[in-house]
């Protein structure tokens, strides 16, 4: 059962990676990588059950966190061109 689940998730990951390589715009690639990361979380969980070691679920949880932070960071960088700049309203802005 778990082998079937792992193979299915692997096929989905392959299709997402095809879109990440094809994608005409930057946002297609970011979207495909976000989906790829979600499927990687599922694959880690399924492989933990397949191996009889469900401790892998901790790794899946950490991977989900890192995937979300990475996606938001890449999007913020390409939207504003900067990661750490404070907003003008908070720093005063008129001096």
């Amino acid at each position, binding site marked *: 059962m778990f082998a079937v689940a792992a193979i299915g998730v692997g096929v*989905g990951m392959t299709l997402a990676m095809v879109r990440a390589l094809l994608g005409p715009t930057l946002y297609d690639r970011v979207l495909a990588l976000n989906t790829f990361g*979600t499927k990687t*979380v599922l694959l880690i*969980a399924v492989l933990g*059950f397949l191996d009889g070691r469900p401790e892998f679920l*901790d790794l899946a949880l950490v991977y989900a966190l890192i995937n979300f932070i990475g996606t938001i960071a890449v999007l913020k960088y*390409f939207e504003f061109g900067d990661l750490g700049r404070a907003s003008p309203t908070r720093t005063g802005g008129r001096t």
Partner: protein
Amino acid sequence: MGWLDVLSWISILAGLFFILVGSIGLIRFPDVYTRLHAAGMTDTMGAGLVLIGLSFQAGLTLITVRLLMIWAFLLFTSPIATHALARAALHGKVEPIQVDLAGGDP
């Protein structure tokens, strides 16, 4: 093969169906805003059903608690990431495809 195994099989297979449909949509849809829909399908239904199927295998243990934590986390972060991506694409001057419903040439 007890009834929990049967429930687990059904959930995992339904989740795999949603994952594969979402991936095919990610390949075939025309622009980035429609592809967001396919990716959201994978994140909510696909991941949720696969994790629920795995938790039927684990029983009432801490493993199920971890699976539910992963599921809740995906449930919160997937709409945030989708919204951020749509906003970034709109600010990045990616025009959505417009279809003329009156029958003229698009």
